[in-house]
């Protein structure tokens, strides 16, 4: 017997599938088909089955079913807890870039309007700079600087939100490297499910794809770390042990991601052991 979306066909006889779109879709999910014994459907069988009147009707019904199934699957996909987190992390990273660019440009503009001004010998950070520029009321520059400041405070709010969400979505990864770095790893992997399936060696160089592919193509030294460089244990380690710390941290992150994905809750025993091992190789036992 051959199972098709509109019914079952055996020896020229057809039993139509019953019910509305939802029922047809549910039935499709229960079909067990093997390609070895599979014979492609012919739409005339659907007419014989009494499911549709003609070719036009056949296609319309099939399209309605397929669109319905795809829409259901898409909304189920978007409802996973980590999908929105991906967008938030990417928005955060783009905001960083944009805010830096705008601040630099505003500073250059401010210097043109104030020939006597110089940042030399004065520790003026981006934030301070903006509040100085903001006082320039005589030009659009002043209010623009105010807007950049607001964007920067929105960025801080988003960062906190990302961190909180990451704590919930991936508690073990977040405990190891902090919510922000954990969120960036998930984002780069394309989701928590994907991250949980990555080997530690890949997690170690996530975010260093350019260096990795240059290494594979032309034999330059391999990258030691990607995103996980942002973790203090890695970037505070002396150069000679940095690769080692990155490797151990990545290995523990690989395990943490799997606990996060498959168990979904914090594991204090694991975290304690992992933390001790990372501290060990970082030489801070």
């Amino acid at each position, binding site marked *: 017997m051959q199972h098709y979306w509109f019914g079952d066909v055996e020896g020229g006889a057809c039993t139509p599938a019953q019910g509305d779109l939802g029922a047809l879709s549910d039935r499709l999910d229960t079909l067990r088909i093997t390609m070895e014994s599979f014979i492609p459907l012919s739409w005339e069988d659907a007419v014989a089955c009494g499911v549709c009147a003609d070719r036009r009707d056949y296609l319309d019904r099939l399209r309605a079913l397929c*669109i319905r199934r795809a829409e259901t699957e898409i909304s189920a996909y978007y409802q996973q807890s980590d999908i929105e987190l991906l967008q938030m992390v990417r928005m955060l990273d783009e905001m960083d870039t944009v805010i830096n660019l705008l601040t630099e440009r505003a500073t250059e503009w401010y210097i043109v309007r104030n020939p006597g001004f110089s940042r030399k010998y004065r520790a003026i950070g981006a934030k301070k700079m903006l509040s100085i520029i903001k006082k320039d009321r005589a030009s659009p520059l002043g209010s623009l600087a105010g807007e950049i400041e607001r964007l920067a405070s929105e960025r801080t709010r988003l960062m906190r939100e990302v961190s909180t969400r990451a704590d919930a979505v991936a508690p073990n990864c977040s405990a190891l490297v902090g919510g922000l770095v954990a969120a960036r790893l998930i984002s780069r992997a394309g989701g928590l499910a994907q991250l949980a399936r990555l080997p530690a060696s890949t997690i170690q160089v996530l975010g260093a794809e350019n260096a990795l592919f240059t290494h594979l193509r032309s034999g330059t030294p391999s990258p030691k770390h990607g995103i996980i460089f942002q973790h203090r244990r890695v970037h505070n380690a002396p150069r000679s042990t940095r690769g080692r710390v990155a490797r151990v941290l990545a290995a523990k992150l690989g395990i943490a991601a799997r606990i996060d994905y498959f168990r979904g809750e914090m594991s204090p025993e694991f975290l304690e052991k992992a933390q001790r091992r990372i501290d060990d190789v970082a030489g801070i036992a």
Partner: protein
Amino acid sequence: MIWIDGVLVSPGEGGVYGERMLKDHRVWDPRRSKLAALFAKGGGRDLDPQMRILYLGAANGTTVSHVADYVESVYAVEFAPRPMQDLIEVARRRKNVVPIMADATHPVEYAPLVEEVDMVIQDVAQPDQAGIVLANLPFLKQDGVYILMLKTRSVDVRADPDAVITATVRNLEAGGLKVHAATRLEPFHRDHAALVCTRK
């Protein structure tokens, strides 16, 4: 195929993705579409009004919309949710497009939905592209044409594209196909080739 002053076009309602119109026809840009590039290089097989097509790796439905302008019906298979949203929108406007959200490496997922087709077009970024061809052969009519858009960099980033093409052709021939031509798609698409195959 319809060419206006040397420009490949398709007959149909415009505005799908901001494509240019030329004398009431939609311009089909070889730089955006690998299939259009294959036609531009002279290696394409004509799309006829009575044809049924299975398109694997339909993405946003850009190329699919042009194919649908020419043929009777298109079964468009795509796996990723984001492009699938766009593909559904294309299918709402084009009554001969059936959008299927499934994985081309697992044809059982869409076997109960797809009929036998005159042509399969495969454009997926996967390592085992020859394997996917062989897995989808049951949907191809005895005298049908299988067009594989081979992304050599997806098979192996390190290997020389020509070596990947040769190896893929060998795999396809071992699987019972005859590869009529392997057309490199430069200058429109780097490191891509179109393999036109039929059953032996």
